[in-house]
């Protein structure tokens, strides 16, 4: 069983300890292209006027990510962003947001624009796909579709590159997307190695 979530659904989600106390809101979802997994979250203080926090939450420190809250063992798991080079560095630079970026295949075909990132939240925090607003060529223009990602991928600035074969495994909803990602990755492994 795997649980897939849209990264933007995590924005503003409350971070709660197993003791039941709320300690922060999720700000950014930070992930690493090489390895394709979520490193962690940057945080806002609770409440409308709470600004960004200096502490971040690493994926390894999480208890669980659910639809209504991000659960952590206790408040001590938050670490200062300077102590986590990967997640904190990205937050410090404030850049690298993939939402709105163009997706191109390796053979130079533009598929669409990223509107969301799909994360497998059960175990590893694996980033399994993009939700894109498709260009005319892929589907009827403007339609949102799910595009599977390989285990690792190259991110180079504003352009996101995916293997051409990803087009064959496009899904319309999260229900069937997990299986599509598995098939796509299996094909990549057997096809290229």
């Amino acid at each position, binding site marked *: 069983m795997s649980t897939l979530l849209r990264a933007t659904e995590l924005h503003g989600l*409350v971070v*709660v*300890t*197993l*003791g*039941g*106390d*709320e300690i922060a809101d999720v700000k950014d979802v930070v992930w690493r292209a090489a390895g394709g997994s979520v490193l962690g979250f940057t945080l806002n203080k609770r409440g409308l006027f709470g600004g960004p926090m200096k502490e971040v939450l690493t994926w390894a420190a999480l*208890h*669980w*990510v*659910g*639809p*209504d*809250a*991000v*659960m952590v063992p206790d408040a001590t798991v938050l670490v200062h962003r300077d102590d986590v080079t990967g997640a904190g560095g990205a937050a410090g630079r404030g850049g690298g947001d993939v939402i709105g970026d163009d997706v191109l295949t390796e053979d130079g075909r533009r598929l669409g624009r990223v509107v969301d990132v799909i994360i497998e939240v059960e175990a590893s925090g694996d980033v399994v796909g993009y939700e894109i607003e498709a260009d005319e060529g892929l589907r009827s223009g403007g339609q949102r579709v799910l595009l599977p990602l390989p285990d690792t991928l190259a991110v180079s600035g504003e352009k996101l590159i995916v293997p051409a074969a990803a087009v064959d495994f496009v899904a319309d909803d999260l229900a069937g997307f997990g299986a599509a990602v598995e098939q796509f990755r299996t094909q990549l492994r057997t096809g290229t190695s």
Partner: protein
Amino acid sequence: MRFTEALKREIVDTSAASSIGRVAGFVVDPRTHAVTALRVKKADHDILAWDDVSAFGVDAVTVDTAARIRAPHQGVEADQPSLLGHRVLDERGVEHGAVDDVEFDPESGTVRYLLTSREEIDGARLRGIGTWAVVVSV
């Protein structure tokens, strides 16, 4: 017995045969899944430890002397929000509505069930009672 039945029940000092106050709330230890103290209304202080209760009867809570009523200790007794009406969240971050009532054993104080509008949650699943939610295991 349920929290909503037990609320407002009279607390009687058996040595003086007089009323001390009324049950205004419950302090629950999420680790032992049991009521550890009662909150008392209309008394000088507002905590009566469960161990100091002589009997949790159908019509009244009895205590041997009014001197058992004391000030809340720092921490849980002072800060714990009321379970009734509080949001229920499981440890996987899924909400389960709010606590409508709590079924407890009037002998031992053990919490048997948390009742939400949707389900009965076994008291043994209690993990934490905090400012945001009651956290239960899955």
